[in-house]
């Protein structure tokens, strides 16, 4: 009874940490621009795939990881420069479709140039499972959770302590006001994309040793990351983390206790429930439209 539950909990928290990083990425971009970046999932995929390929090419793992994050960040910047910026002040529907287009393009390019095969990344510190109260925990899971916590702490320090971080928060609260005090909101948006891509990529890299990676993992990862962000409240950092972990755990518990075939449907049933009953999410703010 308990070992099973713990097992599901461990795997849930592990994948939940990745969802949390993806959700943070969504919230970052949403705060900077009101755009939901449907291409976020592809950044996650790019992280895992780049790292896998670089590692296979013989590059030492830590370097491969670093390069993969940089590659993803660069792609994120490109997407913002080439796809989002030219669209100017387009309608929400338009922007959604543009980011979907970007996601398709990225996925297609990876499929063409890197193939459709699944790849694995070597576990960071070995694969010997650790036994805890009858359940097994992979060392990689500890890496996922540990690095995620470190990243979140770093982000908190960044937003609270640096000028750029505070400028980003200001833009999130009131873009016009931020512009009026001299914040370059265009740069903030560009930076958000880069940072989100890096975060997503890191998440993808962390779980790649466990879940493997291929050209099409981006869709589901991205969508689930968005579900997590909405669950916690779009735009809220705390919400993103809470939403990610919650989603991961609920998904794992569903897979374990209800049906593993419908595991992938869980996030979407959750999102429908949330959107129907609590659209602002757990930590989001209720807003009224000014007429």
């Amino acid at each position, binding site marked *: 009874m308990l070992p099973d539950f713990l097992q599901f909990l461990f795997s849930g928290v592990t994948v939940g940490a990745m969802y949390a990083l993806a959700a943070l990425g969504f919230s970052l971009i949403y705060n900077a621009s009101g755009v939901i970046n449907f291409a976020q999932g592809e950044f996650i995929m790019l992280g895992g795939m780049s790292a896998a390929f670089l590692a296979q090419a013989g590059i030492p793992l830590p370097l491969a990881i670093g390069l993969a994050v940089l590659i993803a960040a660069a792609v994120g910047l490109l997407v913002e420069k080439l796809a989002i910026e030219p669209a100017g002040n387009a309608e929400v529907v338009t922007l*959604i479709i*543009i980011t979907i287009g970007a996601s398709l393009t990225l*996925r297609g390019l990876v499929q*063409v140039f890197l193939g*459709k095969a699944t790849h694995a990344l070597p576990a960071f510190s070995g694969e010997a499972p650790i036994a805890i109260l009858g359940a097994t925990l992979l060392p990689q899971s500890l890496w996922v959770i540990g690095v995620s916590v470190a990243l979140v702490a770093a982000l908190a320090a960044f937003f609270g302590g640096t000028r750029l971080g505070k400028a980003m928060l200001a833009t999130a609260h009131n873009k016009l006001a931020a512009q009026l005090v001299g914040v370059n909101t265009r740069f903030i948006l560009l930076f958000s994309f880069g940072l989100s891509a890096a975060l997503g990529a890191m998440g993808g890299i962390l779980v790649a040793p466990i879940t493997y990676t291929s050209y099409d993992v981006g869709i589901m990862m991205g969508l689930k990351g968005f579900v997590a962000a909405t669950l916690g409240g779009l735009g809220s950092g705390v919400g993103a983390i809470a939403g990610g972990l919650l989603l991961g755990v609920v998904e794992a518990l569903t897979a374990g206790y209800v049906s593993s075939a419908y595991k992938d449907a869980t996030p*979407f049933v959750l999102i*429908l429930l949330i*959107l129907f009953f609590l659209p602002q999410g757990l930590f989001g703010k209720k807003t009224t439209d000014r007429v």
Partner: protein
Amino acid sequence: MTMKPTTRGLILLAVVLAALPLALPNAYYYDVAIRIAINACVAIGLNLLIGYTGQISLGHAGFFGIGAYASAILTAHYGWPPGLALLAGGTATGALAFAVARPILKLKGHYLAMATLGLGIILSIVIVNETAITGGPDGMSVDAFSVLGLPIAGDGAWYCAVAVLLILVTKTALNLIDSPAGRALQAIHGSEIAARVAGVDTTAFKVRIFVLSAVLASVMGSLTAHYVGFLTPGVAGFFHSIELVTMVVLGGMASVFGSILGAAVLTMLPQLLSALEGWETVVFGLILMLTMIFLPRGIVPTLRLKLAKREN
């Protein structure tokens, strides 16, 4: 008496559809033409929802899938006549769309997109998982279509059927747009609050058009199932939903003829790219991005504007 541009367009469409068989060299081209007509009908329905009423649906393939699989399962496993199965599929889709419409359409923008996306994916997952009835990822075969015992088989018969259907769908869509109901829908897009103070029950209208476009997708799904003779879960998948949205967006939001053009281009595209596997996704993605950045109104409305400017 000067003819309205929409009447001109409709006549042109009828002429093209009637004359096309003379130009099509072989069965392959007939197949493409039939698929275009079917996609165009779905796209027109979707455009009424997205372009005219200003909503969004990223899960419409789910409704298409319900119709397709309902027809397939009811005829193959339960021996229902195809016409009845099609009606059953349409009714089931309508009921589902109605049930989720009110809560979903209260949402706006990203949330609405996400909700429709979620719905479509749930439907798609159900189809994949229930292998016993749907054949799962390997798919299932579908019997031929027949109305009151008369089979519709062969490219000629199918072409006539879908061509007539396309003309009907186009005409009713054009009628709708130029009616009080149609103006109410467009007003919802233009300014929902203005529509409301004018007395439009915006929620009811949004629900109605959502259900209508869903049922249309379902009916076309049923027909596709019978026409192709074989179904795979991909017809209800996310990529198909995106294809449908791309047809609307590329051809022109709030343009019935635009949807037909968009359907034509995007049905022919995979055929052209079939040799270049993987590039199909890239090209789709690029089309979506480039259209939305440079031609945000889509092809037909942009052309129409250019012509109008030249006349002035």
